[in-house]
């Protein structure tokens, strides 16, 4: 017992000596930040270079505290990211405020930059996808992978996988009615058909189901899946329709199973259940999961609200909802929002359109991994249409909608902590 005070002293001395000796770079993420999006890139690259970083949940908009280094400070200056050089003592003061039980805040240590894969077909342009757009802007490195890589097992090389407006049902986005004669649609269908043959599948829909299964296996084994736009519902539909043909003749050459709806297996999906398929091949919709524009009404009233979580008890949803704004302008996509009654009970709702059944952002666990689905196409382009010019993120450096995407890339870098009991 007598040894205890001495041991405590040694522990405290060792812990604080490290901190006191080390200046820190404090990157505020509240409204004072000049470029929120690039701040994530700075933190990500600091991790890649081996510096330690802490994510101060709910402290000044979810700020970052990174070991001081000239190269990081210089990078902040060049990229126009607001930062402060603070002493070890000031850092301790921040840590103690954040870890105080009276405050809904916490510190999350970021250990290692995750390896990121983005699922995109060959010939894709960065602006086709909000995630790649923001990764490029924030200068976060990522690899592009497609069906070949997934089917040969390359997913195990990555910590984080992103899916965007891909269609896992094999119906080419259900663009048939509007775009079947467009050159890009013809080429896209050809590309997928060739790819299916190359990978030994008779039909594209069969290959996409295998891709969906492989991704599910990856998540089950500890992978982080982030999906936006139509990749969210089409992915779950593909899983539910594993043993049934839901594609009409113009998509896979033969007719869909007339009893497809009855044959869906909702136990196989990650997030959605009891949804009803849209079997008309000419209608640009997969199912009733997606909220229709008529239900949203006037775009001026389209805002969604982030939920507040307990930073100390629910760190994961807290990380995913870090933002300098709580109410965020909505944006549409092929899949804009999810119908509340069709979301499984096990899934956590991160953002909703208040007082409606319209859910924007959800998160859940599957096996040892997690999945996060975010509805809509481009957070800064309300109605992004095929062929529209890309969004210039230099004009949206403080976009709260884009921030939600970047929360997801840092979240896999977090060290798992034991939950308080």
């Amino acid at each position: 017992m007598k040894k205890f005070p001495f041991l405590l002293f040694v522990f405290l001395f060792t812990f604080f000596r490290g901190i006191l000796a080390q200046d820190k770079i404090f990157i505020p993420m509240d409204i004072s930040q000049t470029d929120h999006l690039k701040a994530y890139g700075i933190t990500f690259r600091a991790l890649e270079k081996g510096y330690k970083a802490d994510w101060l949940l709910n402290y000044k908009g979810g700020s970052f505290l990174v070991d001081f280094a000239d190269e990081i400070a210089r990078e902040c200056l060049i990229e126009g990211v607001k930062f402060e050089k603070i002493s070890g003592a000031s850092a301790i003061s921040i840590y103690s405020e954040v870890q105080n039980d009276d405050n809904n805040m916490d510190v999350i240590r970021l250990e290692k930059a995750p390896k990121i894969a983005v699922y995109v077909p060959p010939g894709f342009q960065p602006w086709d996808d909000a995630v790649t757009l923001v990764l490029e802007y924030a200068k976060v490195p990522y690899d592009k992978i497609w069906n070949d890589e997934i089917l040969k097992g390359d997913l195990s090389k990555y910590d984080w996988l992103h899916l965007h407006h891909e269609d896992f049902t094999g119906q080419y986005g259900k663009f048939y009615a509007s775009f079947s004669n467009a050159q890009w649609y013809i080429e896209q269908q050809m590309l997928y058909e060739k790819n299916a043959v190359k990978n030994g599948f008779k039909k594209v829909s069969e290959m996409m189901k295998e891709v969906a299964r492989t991704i599910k296996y990856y998540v089950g084994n500890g992978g982080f899946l982030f999906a936006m736009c139509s990749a969210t519902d089409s992915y779950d539909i593909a899983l539910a329709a594993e043993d049934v043909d839901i594609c009409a003749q113009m998509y896979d050459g033969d007719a869909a199973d007339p009893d497809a709806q009855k044959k869906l297996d909702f136990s196989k999906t990650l997030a959605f259940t009891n949804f009803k398929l849209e079997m008309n091949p000419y209608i640009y919709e997969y199912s009733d999961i997606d909220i229709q524009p008529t239900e949203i009404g006037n775009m001026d009233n389209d805002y969604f609200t982030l939920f507040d979580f307990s930073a100390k008890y629910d760190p994961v949803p807290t990380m995913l909802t870090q933002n300098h704004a709580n109410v965020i302008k909505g944006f549409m996509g092929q899949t804009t929002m999810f119908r509340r009654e069709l979301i499984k009970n096990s899934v956590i709702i991160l953002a909703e359109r208040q007082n409606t059944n319209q859910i924007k952002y959800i998160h859940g666990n599957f096996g040892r991994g997690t999945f996060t689905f975010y509805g809509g196409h481009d957070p800064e382009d309300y109605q992004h249409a095929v062929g529209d010019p890309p969004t210039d993120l230099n004009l949206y450096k403080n976009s709260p909608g884009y921030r939600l995407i970047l929360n997801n890339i840092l979240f896999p870098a977090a060290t798992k902590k034991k939950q308080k009991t």
Partner: protein
Amino acid sequence: MKFLLTYIIITVTLLFAQTDPFEANQYMLAENYEQAGNYLKAIEIVEKLFQKNPDNQNYFNKLYNLYVTTKKYETALRLIEIRLSSNPDDPSLYGLLGSVYYLMGELNTAKEKWEIPISKNPNNPFIYRMMANYAIERRAFEMAIEFLIKGKTRSDDPSMFAMDLGELFMITMQYESAIKEYCEILVINQGMYPVVESKIFSFINKPDVIQKSIKIVGTYQNKGLVFKNLLAKLYTESRQFDKAFDLYKEIETLQSTGGQQILNFANFLINENEFEVAKKVFEYTYIISENTSIKASAKLGQARTLEAILWNNFNKQNDVWKTFYQPKFFSESATKDVISSYEEVIKLFRYSDVAVEALFSIGRINFYINNEIQKAEEAFVEIVNNYPTSRFYSKSLLELAIIKLIINNNQEAKEILKRIETVVSYSDEDKLSSYFYLSKLYALEGNFAAASENIKKITSNVKNDFTNDALEFSLLLNIAKNDSISLINYAKAEVLIITKKFKEAQVLFDEIALNQQSLVFQPFCLLKSAEMDIALNDYDSGMKKLDQIYSSKEKNIFSDKALYLKAKIFENAFKDLPSAVECYQKILIEFPKSIYSDESRESIIRLNNEINVGKKDA
């Protein structure tokens, strides 16, 4: 009359034959079941109808579609075979047969079935196309291509296959083959050129396709003018402008369009800022064209191109990175061609806006590039006297005012500047420039109230290039009114800068700075003096003064500017890129809100790239 009677009898008979009310109702009922998704019930009804009337094509088609929809492929096969037994030469039945086998995944059998009508009618081109269509319907594009190629070799009219083949090659992304097919179409029918061009240009932006297209189209060059035209467009698209120009010359020699096509090409080059090639093209157009309107347009284009090249060269020869610089003027021989080109334009387009533009350009070249002030003045005076409604009127007034300042006729300069405000259609830029010069001239006279008034007109609009300079001058006017002698001297020095008398201006700035009672002026004068050193290439002295300003940090409002100028000297005069980067970084660190921040950020990235490239090269 007999013919009409026969026609009516046949039509009525057919009509009655098809409208058995019970059968029609049953058929409609089956269709309703089909639409409701109850395929089994629909099949049950149509099967009965078909058994009753096996020759009815509608019942056959409906039954076939229902079997395929419900994936009863074996039954569909039996249905077709029954019909084939009575119609063994019907190619469409083989087409359907092949389709069903294809759906069953038996691709080889499908192909065999589709080939049967072809082998029975090897000389009928329509059979090849018909079977290809069945294959296309099943997205068996490679088989369709095979059928069409066979048909093409057997046909007297290969062009009827080439278009389909081109389309299929395009869909399957076999672009080289597609281009060859489209070229074959052109060999046979040159009237198809617009269609072929639009088809080829729809996929030309795919990786490597343009180079391959050039190679293929090049082999057809001798088969007609259309190929040369197509090749010229492909060269233009791949930015091989000289090669495109050579081809357009050839086309012009062979076709004699009067130069219109080549003029369009030249105008395109100007828009692309390809002045050197544009110059050659305009010259050539001018020589070959007999049409006066094309000739005139070519001359105007030629003059504009020559001027753009001249200004580029002039900027390269001069230190345009400096705030102020002593121009290295060109001799008259260097500008002779441009000026004579513009003189010809004036003759060709007499009294038009183009002629005024040409005259204005001549004036500016004489003034800024040749230092021929008198000639320049003549040009501007001519515009002012003869073209008061032209958009170059106020611009010419402004240039005239600057000339008057240079020849020390400040009073006349002031009067001219005042006239700019009275012009109805003057541009904002001209107006703001005139206010800026006027304020300095009024300050020179000691009329600080009028000087302030003119400066206010600029600072009320913050989105213009003069705002910062105007704000600086306004600051001095407000805080140093009591030290009127220094203020007048400062204004005098500023006017000397306009007249490029940098040494004299520096003497004045230094005098003001030395005056212990003119403390307010010191930071301004020190910076101006440093800028004069830079203008006079005395970089060491300039650097010392800039260091002095920078070392005052926040006490001197020009500390960030001093750093910025230091960076510029390192970058452009000393070619010491790492030191330049260091200065730019200091701006970002120490003056994050500086107006030079954005430019510093961009310069750091650009210079770091240059440094890295240099390292790689070494």
